[in-house]
């Protein structure tokens, strides 16, 4: 299931409900992405982020996330998939994105979870704008994200 929403969500409650619904198959993997309270790769010397706004392309976002979900089901034997992605303004510590996968095989759950977060980082039309003491700025795309996605294009299990 795909959900694109402005409202904050409760990570624990979402994972509990997902696990309750499909848990008997064996394993549940999750990844939660949260707003950091600093910029860049390491906290040393990085300016603090006061808040972040995620803009997206309504319509295309849902289409891309549904394609990514279908691709995960095609590549792995999964019982269930949940992707929640927020847009709008959010504070440090708030969840941005949650990916949950369940499978009888733990490797399938874990690998598909990583695949989904890697893919949506480069294929879902979202753009982050950070508010810092030095002003607002659009976050630049990272080459590492493209590399992470390219990895999955080389290897189809």
């Amino acid at each position, binding site marked *: 299931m795909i959900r694109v929403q402005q409202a904050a969500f409760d990570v624990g409650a979402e994972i509990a409900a997902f696990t309750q619904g499909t848990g008997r198959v064996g394993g549940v993997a999750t990844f939660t*992405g949260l707003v950091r309270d600093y910029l860049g790769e390491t906290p040393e010397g990085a300016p603090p982020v006061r808040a972040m706004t*995620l*803009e*997206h*392309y309504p*319509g*295309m976002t849902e*289409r891309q996330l549904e394609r990514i979900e279908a691709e995960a089901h095609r590549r792995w034997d999964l019982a269930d998939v949940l992707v929640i*992605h927020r847009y709008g303004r959010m504070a440090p510590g708030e969840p*941005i*994105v949650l990916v949950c996968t369940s499978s009888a095989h733990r490797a399938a759950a874990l690998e598909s979870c990583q695949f989904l*977060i890697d893919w*949506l*980082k*480069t*294929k*879902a*039309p*979202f*753009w*982050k*704008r950070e508010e810092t003491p030095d002003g607002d700025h*659009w*976050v*630049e*795309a*990272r080459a590492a*994200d493209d590399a992470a996605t390219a990895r999955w294009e080389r290897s189809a299990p």
Partner: protein
Amino acid sequence: MKVLYFAWLRDRVGTAEETIETPAEVATVADLMGWLAGRSDGHAKAFATPDQVRCAIDQAFAGPDASVSDAAEVAFFPPVTGG
């Protein structure tokens, strides 16, 4: 044809959406970018670094050589940064 702009492309163009009629020689995404760049200073700034611009035709990613002849909705935006 409806044209949408997102993130810093919208900031530079100064609008999120406009409806345009293109001349017949605008056949591809690259042609359209060049043509749009001539519409205003804001458009020119938005398309000044074309390698930093991504495109979707009718809500699916499209490369610079993709045809825009039958497009109803073309969107321009920077590389995505969600997740």
